[in-house]
């Protein structure tokens, strides 16, 4: 109904009312002060404001307090006894869990409580390492932290907690590779493939739930974050292979091969299966970077004259980005047409 009505105002797109519109109408004398206030109340009812403020206060306030706690324990104040240090972390962890049980995981208060408990658990592990000088490598801290909070992450179904957990897992994998696996030169670059596969696995799980059970899926913004991380990780072996193919190890070759498969998979999935212009654009940007590097490599090897080198690169860049924009526009139009059907 709304769409049809909105067609009176604009035929091909719904125009949404917002504050800027109200202020412009008021400034141009098209509505009076009374209408402006009514309109603002309509767009932003007081109770909605209160809810939003309440929520943002909780999220930002908790983030600041948790950051402050991390800063404080990083300071490692020698005057505080180990016992006090432990108690001062354990009590908040227990309090957060109690709060989570009280509020329940369907409310933002409960979710923030379990997130705080998860972060504080990591602080506890770090302080434990500080005090007992366990000599354990850093990857072990992240491993134990990740394992301990995993059940909370699963039951909480909270985007921000998932992100924290993914960061912990990625850090664990990277540090493990560096500190424990200590690969030979031939396998060094495998970490990029492992990390990309790990993140791709979680992206796949996210998409599975989003497709079949949208109510259980984690946020769309997390999909974009995962996409950026996967594509960035894959760019490293691909660019290494292009720039110095003669020195490419088998890990780089495998990484580059995997990278192209992932780019292809993203283009296929996010065009045909789960249309998403942001993921497609990120993939396209990544491909632009790859093609740019190939052009750079070719031009620098084939032409010795500086001026021709710059000219060809300028033209190819113009072509690559224009072509990408044209493709993306066509894809967006096709998607709109598909949605309309």
């Amino acid at each position, binding site marked *: 109904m709304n769409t049809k009505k909105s067609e009176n105002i604009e035929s091909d797109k719904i125009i949404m009312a917002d504050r800027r519109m109200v202020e412009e109408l008021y400034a141009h004398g098209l509505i009076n002060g009374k209408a402006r206030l009514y309109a603002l109340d309509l767009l932003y009812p007081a109770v909605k404001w209160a809810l939003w403020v309440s929520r943002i206060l909780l999220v930002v306030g908790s983030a600041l307090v948790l950051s*402050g706690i991390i800063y404080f324990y990083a300071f490692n104040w020698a005057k505080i006894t180990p016992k006090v240090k432990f108690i001062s972390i354990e009590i908040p962890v227990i309090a957060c869990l109690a709060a989570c049980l009280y509020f329940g995981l369907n409310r933002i208060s409960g979710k923030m409580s379990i997130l705080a408990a998860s972060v504080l658990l990591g602080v506890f592990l770090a302080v434990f390492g500080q005090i007992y000088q366990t000599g354990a490598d850093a990857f072990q801290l992240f491993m134990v932290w990740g394992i301990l909070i995993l059940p909370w992450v699963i039951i909480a179904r909270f985007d921000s907690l998932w992100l924290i957990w993914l960061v912990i897992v990625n850090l664990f994998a990277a540090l493990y590779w560096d500190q424990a696996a200590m690969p030979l030169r031939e396998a060094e670059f495998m970490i990029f493939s492992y990390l990309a596969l790990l993140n791709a696995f979680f992206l796949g799980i996210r998409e599975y739930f989003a497709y079949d059970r949208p109510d259980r899926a984690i946020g769309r913004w997390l999909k974009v974050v995962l996409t950026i991380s996967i594509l960035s990780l894959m760019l490293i072996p691909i660019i290494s292979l292009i720039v110095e193919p003669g020195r490419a190890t088998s890990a780089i070759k495998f990484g580059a091969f995997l990278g192209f498969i992932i780019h292809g998979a993203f283009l296929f999935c996010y065009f045909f299966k789960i249309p998403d212009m942001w993921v497609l654009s990120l993939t396209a940007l990544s491909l632009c970077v790859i093609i740019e590097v190939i052009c750079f490599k070719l031009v620098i090897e084939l032409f010795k004259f500086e001026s021709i080198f710059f000219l060809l690169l300028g033209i190819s860049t113009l072509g690559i980005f*224009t072509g990408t924009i044209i493709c993306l526009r066509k894809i967006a139009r096709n998607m709109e047409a598909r949605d309309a059907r």
Partner: protein
Amino acid sequence: MPDKISMDKYSPDGYSTDISAQKFVDILSNKGLIEGKGQIEHFIVSREMEKRIPLYLRILFGIGAFLSSSFFIGFLGSAGIIDFDSKPGLVIWSVIFIIAAVVLQKTSGDNENGSLHNFMVQSSFCSMAIGKILFVAGLTLILNTIWGIPLAAFIITLITYNVYKMSVDRFLSSFVVLYSVMWIIMLEMKEPGLREMVLNLFFLFQLIITAALLTYGKTKREYIPLFYAFIFSLCVMVVFLTSQSEIGYAWREVIISTVFINIELTISLILVIAWAAGSSDNMKKEPVLLACCASLFLGFISAPGILLSISLLILGYANHEKLLSLMGALLMIFFMIYFYYSLDLTLASKAAVLISSGMVLLAGRFYIKFRQMDSEV
């Protein structure tokens, strides 16, 4: 209060309402609050006429133009077509490229999906970037002062802003002016007291312009990129100042105190709350007064990044502009990272700043809950 039935749907965040413009006008008309419904509809349609390119395409346009213009400038220089030592020559070439950019854009047509249109738009943007870079280089050489950079950038932005209708170009050009001013104040002003004063005044100037662009209803939509450039510049400046310190690694000279900037941002936060409240009558209401008091308190104990970030989150919500909210959230994250590494405070002091700021916000949350202000939903 508006009828609940008049709400189209809840937005994804669940806390604001999305109402189509048509429904909005209908509601106001049915309530007898407006006259000349047709005129209002016409106004709304005309303000929407400007074609908006999706953000992801704007990013691609921007990156493509930046890279290609860099290569073309390299070509023009290395081929000897442009003599970079010739001051008037640079300016003349810049004018040629800028005119070419405008002509290309004007002749690119309306077919957004056409290959030729997109190629011409991208070429036009690239040509404009080359023209502007050459103009800034040329005028700076002519004036023989580093202040020529922001001055030239300002002049060329002023000339092209209304002629060349591309939001990415408007945003980037305006941002370059502001950013270059900040850097030159930092690099060129050797006298610490003067430098601090000028930097603070520059920050204040940016805040005033941002506020004017935000609140003046007759501001045209084409000035939205300018508004974002100012906001982005404020964010960059806050993060930049956080990275400076008395014993800092970036500059080993003198600390730039953020006290005045904290005061400016505290006042801004209070004004943002007042603006969001909508009217002077609403200002007298308990929640708004409380928010203002909390902001004042926060100003005493908190840091600039936190204050600006909260202001942006409020602006983003109040304006239905997710980009502003995203900038607020990202600023908070970047600020935290820089804050951790800036050395003029010990980690314990930083922890105290963060924990006390967080406690103020959480106290506000508990008060809202206690008074059940958010309990209707």
